[in-house]
């Protein structure tokens, strides 16, 4: 033990006293982009992780069969796809692609990846993403078929989730369990090194099938404090930060050396109700809350316009989102009338349970103030994330604040999880049970016709908004700030999808 510590100390001293740069070998020629993330990645094996920072890194090193852009589903490692029967999809794969270790990318590699992902031995953290998959079969070198256990329409969208990235079979054989620290994929950047809690370095993949990226190196640094991230960005220590606090965005926008991007995200923020417990077991009381919250004011004053008002559970970028939902208009008289009709007397003290974050604190305050005129004394309970989850599981709340991201960008992912009766109490925390919505959601995931699916999901959302298991507040924007010399970065729908393939740097 002492020997190991001494060895660590020696390495540290060499690094600390070493020659200027971080001692990670000769920098590749060309420019480096340094990105701050809130915490360190946990594992760089796509099958062994399910958190934002890990996916941010994985998305640079690995690729999925398909990607979802503003235009819809697009090819990535698969070039085309077609249904074969009602439980199987066939994919044509991109030719001439190689993994970073030289292994050819082919149908066998895809089969290997999928089988490893769904194998219980793999302990895949994001297993739920492909839990409906029965198996994969290599038909030809560039053709693979994936079969589900039941007809499952959203499979294509699930294959855009970073956990389904295709990994190098040779590298898995070589590194075994250490693949989590030696990731080998087909992506535009190759893994170089990982100093835990300090930095993950990636270098350009010169053989990238889409043409080598312009930038030579990407460094991702975990910096937990957002004030520190901002100082680093302004002083040039990092080039890009995500999800700045609402208060600082205006100041960063005034800085001529920075550019702030705000893009629509796949997330939505809700206030949910415990539907099996008074007073919110009465739909009139839930609707009254919906009419009492002035969401527009909340967005302007508390969120500095970094969100758009929600009318339903799905952000408009999600497939199947219903843009025509009426939502709940701010109308205090109507809210009072609904409460009177339900026979609710003033003086109730419902608990609103939220998890610790500056944003939720503000939202909770706004809700508290909004419900005061109705005679509700809302008791806000701020807990950390782990506690919040178990409070929700055990039903220890009357109201709860929640953010949900439709990671696959398909309505099924969110609607089935949050509103199908089989998913209560978790993640259907509201304990919402509607036979009609159940039927629609079962049908929506089973049929392949996307046009019909869209109609089904629109109908389901209309029913959900009518029943108000939650009030839908807003769709947060995904924000990031970049040093102004850096161009052509995108982060579609979420910071974890940061794309640096086409990024350029002029200092």
């Amino acid at each position: 033990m002492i020997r190991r510590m001494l060895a660590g100390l020696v390495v540290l001293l060499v690094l600390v006293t070493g020659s200027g740069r971080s001692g990670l070998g000769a920098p590749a020629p060309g420019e480096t982009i340094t990105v701050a993330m809130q915490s360190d990645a946990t594992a760089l094996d796509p099958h062994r992780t399910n958190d934002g920072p890990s996916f941010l890194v994985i998305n640079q090193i690995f690729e999925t069969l398909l990607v979802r852009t503003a235009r819809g589903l697009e090819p990535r490692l698969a070039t085309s796809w077609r249904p074969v029967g009602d439980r199987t999809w066939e994919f044509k794969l991109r030719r001439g692609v190689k993994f970073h270790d030289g292994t050819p990318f082919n149908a066998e590699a895809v089969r290997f990846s999928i089988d490893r992902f769904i194998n219980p031995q793999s302990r895949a953290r994001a297993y739920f993403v492909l839990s409906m998959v029965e198996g994969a079969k290599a038909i030809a070198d560039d053709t693979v078929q994936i079969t589900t256990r039941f007809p499952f329409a959203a499979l294509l969208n699930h294959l855009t989730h970073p956990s389904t990235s295709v990994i190098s079979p040779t590298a898995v054989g070589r590194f075994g369990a250490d693949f989590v620290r030696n990731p080998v994929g087909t992506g535009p950047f190759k893994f170089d090194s990982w100093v835990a809690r300090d930095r993950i370095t990636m270098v350009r993949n010169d053989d990238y099938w889409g043409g080598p990226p312009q930038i030579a190196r990407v460094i991702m640094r975990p910096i937990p404090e957002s004030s520190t991230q901002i100082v680093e960005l302004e002083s040039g220590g990092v080039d890009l930060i995500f999800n700045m606090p609402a208060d600082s965005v205006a100041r960063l926008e005034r800085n001529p050396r920075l550019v702030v991007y705000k893009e629509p995200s796949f997330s939505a923020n809700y206030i949910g109700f415990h539907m099996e417990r008074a007073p919110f077991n009465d739909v009139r009381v839930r609707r009254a809350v919906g009419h009492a919250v002035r969401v527009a004011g909340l967005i302007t004053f508390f969120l500095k316009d970094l969100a758009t008002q929600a009318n339903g559970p799905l952000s408009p970028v999600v497939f199947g989102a219903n843009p025509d939902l009426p939502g709940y208009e701010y109308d205090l008289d109507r809210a009072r009338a609904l409460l009177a009709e339900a026979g609710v007397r003033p003086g109730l003290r419902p608990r609103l349970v939220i998890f610790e974050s500056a944003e939720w604190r503000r939202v909770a305050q706004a809700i508290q103030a909004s419900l005061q005129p109705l005679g509700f004394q809302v008791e806000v309970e701020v807990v950390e994330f782990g506690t919040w989850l178990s409070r929700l599981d055990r039903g220890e709340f009357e109201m709860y604040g929640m953010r949900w991201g439709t990671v696959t960008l398909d309505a099924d992912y969110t609607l089935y999880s949050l509103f199908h009766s089989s998913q209560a109490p978790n993640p259907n925390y509201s304990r919402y049970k509607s036979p009609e919505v159940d039927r629609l959601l079962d049908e929506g995931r089973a049929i392949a016709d996307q046009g019909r699916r869209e109609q089904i999901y629109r109908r389901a959302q209309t029913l959900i908004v009518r029943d108000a298991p939650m009030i839908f507040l807003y769709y947060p924007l995904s924000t990031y700030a970049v040093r102004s010399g850096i161009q052509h970065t995108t982060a579609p729908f979420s910071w974890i999808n940061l794309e640096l393939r086409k990024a350029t740097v002029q200092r």
Partner: protein
Amino acid sequence: MGRYLFQRLSLLVPVMLGVTLVAFITLHLAPGDPVRVLLGELGQGASQEEIARLRSTLGLDAPLPVQYGRFVWRAAQGDLGRSLRTGAPVLDEVLARAPFTLVVTVASLGIALAIGIPAGVLSAAYRGSAVDHAAMLLALMGVSLPVFWLGLLLMLVFALALGWLPASGFGTWKHLVLPAVTLGLASSALIARMTRSSLLEVLGQDYIRTARAKGLSGRIVLLRHALRSALIPIVTVVGLQLGGLLGGAVLTETVFAWPGLGRLAVGAIYSRDAPLVQGTILFTAIAFVLINLAVDLLYAMLDPRIRYD
């Protein structure tokens, strides 16, 4: 002396059992299911069966006494288990992070001593003067400033406004300056106050009067005769501070994104990563015991009247 050392070191065993048991119990008393936390915000789509499956593969479905028993049994064989979150061996994680915290701690202690002792000596020597008042006012401020705030302030000045030092992270000696100064300033204030009061007490004693009466210069009396005797309470405070600095590293490491034990522990607590929490606590407890032992041994060197036979 050998026997004394053995006795003190054998105390480590109950201490280790005690702290890990307390850590284990508090972690499990705190609400929050490690499996759900592990799946995280992005993993809320996981079904009940999937959660149960992950729970059993992680060995978290066993009764708590069994889980703790397993931990102790493996720890006795030098295996602290694997982190629930990353799957990496806990011992490796802790040993890899420890040097980072050690470097900051030692550097900040150096700064604390370099500022604290001279300030304390000056204050005592010019008791009641403007120098004394100024030094003690600064010390009071130093003790009262929250590390978090001081860290951000130093960062704004030296990284953003002046651009002399990097704001955060780790790499060159320059990266060490701000975290070490931030941590060191607060301790230096305490050490200065302790030095002053301890020195004043000694200066009132008979042998100091004798030394002065012999005609020795004030400087020699102060630094050679008085300071050495006054050092014992100072060493005690420094020893305690060293432990405190290890703990204070939690905040400093977070502000400065320094990859040490403090951040490891905080992250582990948030993710209900029991093996990792126990590992870091165990390590810190051992360090604490060893520091205390070193302090006690130092007493004997400073004061020949103290013997450990």
